[in-house]
């Protein structure tokens, strides 16, 4: 039974929609041992950089490695925290300013675990996932985004 574990694809083409988030929440209503959910959403900002406004970010990734990293982060969250569920979705391709690029969703019996795990997963993603972002300006020039 040395079957290799199937790694989930975390990437969604384009922005993550509010409808997608509502669907995910609705799917958890059958799990009546859950008392608390925490959801983190990353939204693309129309930052002003050297006088030019960011109109979108174009995300690219080393997808195979990124999916492996997302899976490891998720697994480690289940080890560290008493979770019922944990889900991660990240955009690839163009996400306009105001649209959502990251959706982290943790659920637990009690709020402390849901809060701690959501924050942990988000910080781990920012630090460890090989995802790259090209901030596009109105004049079609760009800069590369770097996480802090």
């Amino acid at each position: 039974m040395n079957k290799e574990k199937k790694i989930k694809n975390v990437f969604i083409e384009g922005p993550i929609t509010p409808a997608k988030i509502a669907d995910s929440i609705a799917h958890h209503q059958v799990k009546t041992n859950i008392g608390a959910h925490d959801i983190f959403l990353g939204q693309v900002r129309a930052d002003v950089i050297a006088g030019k406004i960011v109109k979108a970010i174009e995300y690219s990734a080393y997808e195979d490695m990124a999916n492996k990293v997302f899976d490891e982060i998720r697994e480690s969250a289940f080890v560290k925290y008493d979770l019922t569920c944990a889900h991660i979705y990240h955009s690839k391709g163009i996400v306009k300013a105001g649209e959502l690029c990251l959706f982290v969703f943790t659920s637990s019996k009690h709020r402390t675990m849901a809060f701690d795990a959501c924050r942990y997963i988000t910080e781990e993603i920012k630090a460890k996932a090989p995802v790259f972002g090209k901030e596009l300006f109105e004049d079609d020039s760009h800069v590369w985004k770097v996480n802090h």
Partner: protein
Amino acid sequence: MKIKVLYFGMIAEVIGHDFEIIEISNKNSTVNELIKLLQAKFPKLEDMSFKVALNQSIVEENTKIGINDEVAILPPFAGG
């Protein structure tokens, strides 16, 4: 030996491709030697920050590269 090197983000932009086949000197080549070779070919890399992944895991510069290793040069992460 020949190895395939993957480039991402601003690194791919500077180099002009998503991947290249690179000839490295021998079977005991390290990540550090590959970096020096790439910097000689693409001087702009010297001013850039990046990490190297072997087979989808970040490695140190003294790690040896094997013939079937998947090598990737990764600029700073910007996920989320």
